[in-house]
């Protein structure tokens, strides 16, 4: 099916790849269907585009490409909601907030997008804990590593 996207114009998507967020996302409770579109081949960034709202898209990144040891527990509620049967079902993405300057970008580590890639179900999990900030800023080394 064809959808209109914010960043890539019209895109032909596979309906089987639509990820359902049964609860929506905080701030976007009505938005329940998204697709993941890599920014380009080999990019660390993935655009999470709303299927029904062309203007709504999030720039996301896999946390493992920024920090080591990103760890949290997935609650039973989330496991049930996302029909998770094992760690191999899960991919993690974190929403990137980009200001005027790219180097000032922050990454929301406090609320990862947990996606069961085998069942196409997702939820933005809020880690109610002070370990990871909502606005995580890349330090110089991390920025360099990403740019190299």
């Amino acid at each position, binding site marked *: 099916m064809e959808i209109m996207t*914010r*960043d890539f114009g019209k895109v032909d998507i596979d309906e089987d790849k639509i990820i359902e967020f049964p609860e929506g*996302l*905080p*701030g*976007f409770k009505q938005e329940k269907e998204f697709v993941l579109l890599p*920014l*380009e081949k*080999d*990019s*660390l*960034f993935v655009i999470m585009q709303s299927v029904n709202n062309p203007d*709504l*898209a*999030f*720039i996301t*990144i896999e946390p493992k*490409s920024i920090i080591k040891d990103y760890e949290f527990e997935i*609650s*039973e*509620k989330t496991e*049930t909601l996302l029909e998770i049967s094992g760690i191999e079902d899960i991919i993690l993405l974190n*929403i*990137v*907030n*980009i*200001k*005027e300057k*790219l180097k000032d970008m922050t990454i*929301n580590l*406090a*609320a990862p997008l947990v996606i069961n890639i085998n069942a196409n179900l997702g939820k*933005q999990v*809020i880690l*109610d804990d002070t370990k990871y900030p*909502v*606005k995580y800023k890349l330090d110089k080394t991390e920025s360099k*590593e*990403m*740019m*190299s």
Partner: protein
Amino acid sequence: MLILTRKKDEKILINEDIKVTVVEIKGNKIKLGIEAPDEVEILREEVYKSVEQENIEATKESKVQLNQLKKFGKKPDTDEE
């Protein structure tokens, strides 16, 4: 809003399976203990609000040049040698 007065160690029952206990009262701080089934999500409101705010902000500031972003983050193992 339903307003109830409780003393230290007193509890409130919600739906019979959610129990909120006033654990400690100290100045303007109250410690609450919450017992609830696993499927009940419990969050401090400001944490939820900050995520909500951050999501909205993240979609607003989308004016960045995607070309710039493309240069910024490449998977290291796929770099051409």
